[in-house]
């Protein structure tokens, strides 16, 4: 198996939902090209299609029309099982609400993606401990989520996202539930991992501070995506409303 590299392209992706007789178009022809190792932020107000875009990029959802190309392979027509496998191998998720499994220890949580890949328990735990060490959680491998602070939970979640060596790390408001200092540390960790391991990082955020630290910044509005100028962001970021 060739290692995934994390280059992805969306070509004229549209997504619409039908609720009763009403069809709502959430994504209206999104084009996106991300190279392997890019560090990208996407900002946008609520209802702009951010989440839908992330679900499609994260292989949880399929575009209604358009193409989704991952490392040169068109994945828009894949079935559920193939998408699950690809998600497992290719994508690491970091969520705003952490989404750790409450009954499992930090190490066991990190093991989950490996389990679905068929890695043996011993090997999976070994790799989980190593990556928890890397994100600075080596002392807390046996803790359960309710014994961890928000920042610690997010570190465990980042470790879980990375343990399977995905090409693409997809972070949805990764600092949204954290205080400023912890948010800063968490962003620092993501930046380090991007630089160190070459993993492509795509961050969806409301926070202009977060967006400013990314090398490429995009905005989504009304279901359409625009890349912002590589100049230091000013008004564009600060007008984004903060989600309650």
């Amino acid at each position, binding site marked *: 198996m060739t290692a995934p590299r994390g280059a992805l392209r969306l070509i004229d992706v549209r997504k619409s939902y039908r609720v009763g007789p009403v069809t709502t178009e959430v994504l209206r022809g999104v084009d996106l090209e991300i190279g392997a190792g890019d560090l990208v932020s996407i900002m946008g107000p609520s209802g702009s299609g951010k989440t839908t875009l992330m679900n499609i990029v994260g292989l949880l959802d399929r575009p209604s029309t358009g193409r989704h190309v991952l490392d040169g392979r068109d994945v828009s027509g894949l079935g559920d099982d193939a998408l699950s*496998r690809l998600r497992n191998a290719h994508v690491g998720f970091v969520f705003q609400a952490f989404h750790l499994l409450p009954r499992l220890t930090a190490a066991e949580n990190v093991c989950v993606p490996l389990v679905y890949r068929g*890695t043996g328990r011993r090997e999976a735990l070994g790799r989980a401990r190593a990556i928890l060490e890397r994100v600075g959680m080596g002392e807390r491998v046996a803790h359960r989520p309710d014994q961890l602070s928000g920042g610690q939970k997010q570190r465990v979640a980042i470790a879980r996202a990375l343990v399977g060596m995905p090409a693409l790390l997809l972070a949805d408001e990764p600092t949204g539930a954290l205080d400023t200092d912890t948010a800063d540390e968490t962003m620092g960790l993501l930046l380090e991992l991007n630089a160190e391991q070459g993993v492509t990082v795509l961050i969806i955020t409301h926070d202009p501070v977060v967006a400013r630290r990314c090398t490429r910044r995009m905005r989504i509005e009304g279901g359409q995506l625009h890349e912002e100028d590589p100049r230091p962001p000013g008004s564009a970021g600060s007008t984004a409303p903060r989600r309650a």
Partner: protein
Amino acid sequence: MPGILPILGANARQAVDSLARARLRTALGLVGIMIGISSVIAMVSLGEIAKEQARRQFEALGTDVLLVRTVAASAAPQGISLADAIGLVEAVPAVAEAAPRILGHGEFRHAGRKVGQGRVQGVTAAFASINRMSLQAGRFVSLLDADRHFCVVGATVADAMRQGGSGRIVGETLEIGDILFTVVGVLDPRPESYALPVQVEADESVFVPIGAAGRIADNPAIELAVARSSAGVDYRAAVADIRSWFRRRAPDLQLDIITAKELIAQMEAQMQTFALLLGSVGSISLVVGGIGIMNIMLVSVAERRREIAIRRALGARRRDIQSQFLIESVILTLAGGLLGILLGLAATWAICRFTGWEFLISGMSVASGLGTAAAAGLFFGFQPARQAARLDPIAGLQAE
């Protein structure tokens, strides 16, 4: 296929953990399954025990024993004559041995002391051989004793005589009612076999020559004749021959002939009724328990929508989620099944004590109990597991 085992292992750990959390709900679901499985166990066990009982029966006495009885309201009050009963062997080649019996009842006294109370059975030597009775001392009574006052005592009676201080029992005098008999033999202990056509109760009985029994028994008619059919003769042919012999000798006699084969068949029919009853109780409680399990699993799926969505996002396929919940329901029913096996074996033991059958644990029953439990888990867990597998991960991730 590589990697299935780690997934199954992780699923099983997860399942045990989540079941342990919902204790009350789990316990309620278990009760139904437990009762269902215990019925299955009792049903299969009793079937096996009855089969074993029949097999031992066959080994102990053979299935060639016939019981010839006069019907109570028979027009011939004198019943079977001794001559006819004994002549049966000569006249009917299908009968190898015949043992008439006159049955009385009395109190036994020895050296002025009561040593027992029980059956006084007037018999011939054939009675001992047909019923496989053996002697620890002396000899059995025979036709040659005619009406002489000899007797053979059963093991329990002999023990009571020994407690009175008599070392050698053969040669002692035993009072039966008011009549004196000389002991000529002592029987070995003989466990009663309940499925037999003849109730012998040898241990508590005293056996006297059939010619001498008339003085003791209130009704000196020959109460029954036990016959053994010749080797290789179909028992139905033997029954027909016996009927035709008595029709010639005593046309008024109404006979009832019971064969060991019929008794075994009767016992099997009884067992089938039992099995049917237990089977229906078992299936009803299995269905009730299974619906309980299904309910538990549906609640569990609803409560864990977010967990399911997270697992799906991390790469679990639908079948991984499905197997996680199936394993959970199978573990649940297997736990109920194990308890049910214990309960079922206990019930079987109780029934065996009640009926006098010998209790045994059959591997077949335990296997069928576990098999049924696992099948119930798969069957009733299928729909919830399928529902879990089909949950939309996107909705689950957004749910609070």
